[in-house]
């Protein structure tokens, strides 16, 4: 037989096998009939020379041949069906008619499970479209397409080992090359556990785990070609590929928000420049003119200071609101006292009340339990509420700040005896840009202060509420969780609360903590 370079299609076997089977069957039968004739001739039962003998022998041969072929066909039918099915499953084009799994005979002899199994081997379904181009791929071609799919996919897929080393990655995975040519995943984790730390943690205590990271960036903000991803990773201990990580690029979705925030950050930068100079020189002038100016002139200076301070805190409100709306407002909670938080702005508040002729009384007991708070942000809440109380009360009126301890919270309240509001207004107070009915005519303001204050308090895990009686006054109160009630949770989150550096969102100095102007 001639050798062939290409592997033969599976169905060729059937054709040659059937041919051989028929040939052997015919030959054997010929031998049997001929030997019978010869034997009978030897016993002289018949004569080999008689025409009748050959007629009978021929008749028997033909009948036997028919019966034989019938049995042969029946006996080898399952084999034929299996080969046909396998041939189709392999995607070969053949003259053999494909056998349907619901074929009557197949069902009758109980071959259906076998046929179904073979059918599924080939990818199942669509039995009537076996000859379509889609199904005619062989196994090798399929593997190539899998690679192609990974190559062209915009979703990054990375396989990592238990040490966090890359086993495989497709081009959509952001990577950079180390000096020794090993590729490393190139995204930055700031407030969250990094992928490699997560894998390390999983190695220690998990069998199966998964985690999603939202909005991880390939480069720091402001750099060229910065891309933003949502990331998902799964972990399975002991598996050949223990970690599979997916990267979905969301740059176009997240970038506009980033640009908005950048715009506000740049605008705030511009506004803060002149304020720095105004506040700075006022401070210097008041110091240097001390003793040379009249009491009245000093009061005018105070008004300038109060106004520039307010301007500065409004800018902070705008920045924080923008960050909060875009989920960028990150608070770094740590153990501190209510008194210390208020201490950051107490001088400013006292001056503000004095300049605007309000009596500010502050009653914050020294024995209150410590709270878990971001001091700079929490002090802004104090500032906003007192600022409001001053705004919406009358000259000579009093503003009272109190703090009391409840079980797991410290409650701070700011009460004024000013113009108050009708009850239907109270519910809307915390909406951005909302101001009460009358305030629209009498007092200027953006209404952003209460909105961001509530957001900051709730980000601490506290609540804020308002009570008011029209013409009598309003009380705004908020709660901050005691440090003891959330300490274990904060420690578990680890990292960001441990070092002084990450402890504050405003100004800070190493070993001295937060600073407020």
């Amino acid at each position, binding site marked *: 037989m001639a050798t062939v370079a290409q592997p033969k299609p599976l169905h060729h076997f059937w054709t040659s096998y059937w041919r051989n089977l028929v040939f052997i069957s015919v030959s054997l039968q010929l031998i049997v009939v001929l030997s019978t004739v010869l034997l009978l001739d030897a016993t002289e039962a018949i004569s080999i020379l008689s025409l009748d003998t050959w007629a009978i022998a021929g008749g028997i041969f033909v009948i036997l041949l028919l019966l034989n072929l019938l049995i042969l066909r029946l006996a080898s039918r399952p084999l034929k069906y299996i080969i046909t099915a396998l041939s189709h499953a392999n995607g070969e084009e053949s003259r053999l008619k494909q056998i349907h799994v619901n074929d009557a005979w197949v069902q009758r002899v109980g071959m259906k499970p076998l046929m179904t199994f073979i059918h599924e081997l080939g990818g199942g379904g669509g039995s009537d479209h076996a000859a379509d181009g889609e199904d005619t791929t062989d196994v090798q071609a399929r593997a190539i397409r899998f690679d192609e799919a990974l190559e062209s996919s915009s979703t990054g897929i990375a396989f990592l080992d238990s040490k966090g080393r890359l086993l495989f990655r497709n081009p959509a995975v952001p990577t950079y090359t180390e000096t020794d040519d090993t590729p490393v995943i190139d995204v930055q984790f700031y407030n969250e556990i990094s992928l490699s730390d997560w894998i390390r943690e999983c190695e220690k205590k998990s069998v199966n785990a998964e985690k999603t990271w939202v909005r991880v960036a390939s480069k720091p903000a402001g750099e060229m070609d910065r891309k933003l991803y949502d990331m998902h990773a799964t972990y399975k201990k002991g598996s050949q590929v223990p970690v599979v990580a997916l990267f979905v690029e969301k740059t176009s979705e997240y970038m506009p928000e980033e640009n908005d*925030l950048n715009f506000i950050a740049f605008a705030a930068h511009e506004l803060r*420049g002149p304020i*720095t*100079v105004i*506040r*700075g020189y006022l401070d*210097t002038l008041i110091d240097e003119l001390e003793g040379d100016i009249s009491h009245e002139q000093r009061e005018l200076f105070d008004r300038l200071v109060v106004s520039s301070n307010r301007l500065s805190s409004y800018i902070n409100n705008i920045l924080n609101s923008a960050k909060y709306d875009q989920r960028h407002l990150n608070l770094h909670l740590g153990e501190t006292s209510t008194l210390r938080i208020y201490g950051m702005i107490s001088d400013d508040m006292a001056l503000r009340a004095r300049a605007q002729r309000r009596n500010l009384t502050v009653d914050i007991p020294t024995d209150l339990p410590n709270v878990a708070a971001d001091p700079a942000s929490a002090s802004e809440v104090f500032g906003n509420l007192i600022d409001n109380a001053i705004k919406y009360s009358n000259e000579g009126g009093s503003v009272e700040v109190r703090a009391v301890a409840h079980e797991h919270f410290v409650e701070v309240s700011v009460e004024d005896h000013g113009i108050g509001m009708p009850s239907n207004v109270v519910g809307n107070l915390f909406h951005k840009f909302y101001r009460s009915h009358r305030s629209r005519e009498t007092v200027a303001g953006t209404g952003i202060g209460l909105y961001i204050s509530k957001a900051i308090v709730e980000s601490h895990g506290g609540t804020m509420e308002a009570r008011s009686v029209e013409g009598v006054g309003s009380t705004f109160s908020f709660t901050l969780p005691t440090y003891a009630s959330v300490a274990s949770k904060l420690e578990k989150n680890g990292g960001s609360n441990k070092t002084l550096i990450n402890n504050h969102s405003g*100004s800070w100095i190493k070993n001295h903590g937060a*600073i407020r102007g």
Partner: protein
Amino acid sequence: MAIHSILVIEDDRFIGEMYVRSLIKEGYAVDWMVDGNDGLVAARNKEYDLMLLDVMLPERRGTEILKALRGGKENLVPNTKIIVMTNFEQDDESRIATEHDVDGYLIKADITPKKLLSIIEELN
């Protein structure tokens, strides 16, 4: 280590003059640079006890100066304290990266010259 010499890198004339004026009045030896390149050169040429570094600077941003001085394997200014002073609200990630290499991070609008002097006093 007591602080005597201070390098101020600040491009805003008014703000720079304001801080420099009160620092000199207080008896510090102050050099003032208005752009990032000059600032970096000054920091490399002379050893200062303290550097007040703005972020949004012409020629070379404050973060780049910081990277050049402390971002490599070797801290080029081991005896200098660095305080970043900015009015620019960096996003958290850039900010954390900046804070990693400095001794203080101040929002200028919150820091009057008097306040700055007391902060430097505290650093001593």
